[in-house]
């Protein structure tokens, strides 16, 4: 967690765009997906990278319900964290709008930026559709 109010360029713009429904991922000339900030494709080294619209929905690949959080999520626990496959790229986020005990692998979710109940910071959220 950043100690100051200074933004993390690339990441904070992405969160802001995602909050407006304009989430994107980065795609290199060879079609590899990745997340910002990124100057070089981690798969192939291509520096030809462009922002591409993130698919509307993704599928949960694995999930855990965390009961012992870091201090930054003290008031949020228990919460479900999932790895979601959006096709060209995957994201890790918190599953919202569903009882944490009902979250399971294979569930289809859409990105929805939420806020931490502990810190008020923006958090990558995932809502079942």
């Amino acid at each position, binding site marked *: 967690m950043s100690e100051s109010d200074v933004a993390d360029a690339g990441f904070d713009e992405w969160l802001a765009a995602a909050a407006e429904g304009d989430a994107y991922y980065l795609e290199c000339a060879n079609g590899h997906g990745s997340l910002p900030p990124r100057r070089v494709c981690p798969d192939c080294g291509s520096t030809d990278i462009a922002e591409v619209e993130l698919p509307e929905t993704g599928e949960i690949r694995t999930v855990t319900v965390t009961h012992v959080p870091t201090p930054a999520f003290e008031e949020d626990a228990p919460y479900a*964290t999932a790895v979601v496959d959006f096709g060209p790229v*995957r994201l890790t986020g918190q599953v919202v709008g569903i009882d944490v005990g009902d979250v399971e692998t294979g569930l289809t979710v859409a990105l929805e930026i939420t806020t931490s109940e502990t810190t008020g910071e923006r958090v990558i959220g995932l809502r079942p559709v």
Partner: protein
Amino acid sequence: MSDVRVAGTGLTSFGNSPERTSRDLFAEATITAFEESGVPRDDVEAVLYGNFMGELSEHQGHQGPLMAEAAGVQAPATRYESACASSGTAVREAVKRIRTGENDVVLVGGAERMTNLGTAGATEALAIAADDLWEVRAGVTFPGAYALMAQAYFDAFGGEHEDLAHIAVKNHENALSNENAQYQRAIEVSDVLEAPPVSEPLGLYDACPISDGASALVLTSEAYAEEHDLEAPVAITGTGQGGDRMALHDREHLARSPAAREAGAEAYADAGVDAGDVDFAEVHDCFTIAEVLALEALDLEPLGEGISAARDGRTTADGETPINLSGGLKAKGHPVGATGASQIVEVTELLAGHHPNSDHVADATTAVAHNAGGTVASATVHVLEVDR
């Protein structure tokens, strides 16, 4: 490639000593290592030291020279940070230095002070081994990341929490005779299953404890050991290192550890052995599921079958390939920066016949130490062999 001799080993007890500084912990481990080795401090040409969270727990950077000083050694010193694989990485660098002839005698080890941070503070500190922007800020903790892998494993290969519980039971059993272990206490499968959840499916007894402790090794060249008539029957004969994408979500398979596979393959080839030659191993069981992933990455179990190894007795002290005879991270404890070198200490003692559990591996000649960082974005593997 010439072998590297383990001339002396030292460990502190692992456990709960929040008031002790890491410089004090490391000093204690080095005193034992020097005494055992018979090597004078003046002969040390480099100090390689592993530590992960010193900035957070002790407000201390630049720890290399501090630790050389604590050990009473006048030699250039470097700190290695590679999360939980910090001192495994330091050992690998020491081996390479000795093999190239750059150094004949190296002091290598590590230390970590953690319990002074408390559970919440240590959880926060450990989490920095993950991608801060894309994992930690989404609420991923270190147990949470391994829980994600455990669930992915169950979905891919089957298995259940009870299978994992047998790993914790086994490692606690192995630690009963290890006086350096944090937990010298037997547990039962029901204890694991009934423990409070940390990150489901993992509970409190699936997780290694938060620990303070240090480890040290005096490593020498073959020539130095011969010239000085050292009693050093155990050699590091193979070393390997692997890497992977930082964030778990960027791995093709969420329930595999290719970095450990790469490190293992390199170490086996380097030593001229294969998985079938391994008589026993110390693997990085920071969580029960981590032992499963390690066994499969090292080819000690086929893919998808590591989950049943402890339950079916293949990896228990009397099994065909005993795993974590020290108690592992699970019961011995996991002072992060000390762990990699401490595994080499345990393997050396087991092979040399000096370990309380040596009787279980009396005829063993070849063993492996596997050290992993983060969700195994970093891994080192070492092969050790003993003269018999």
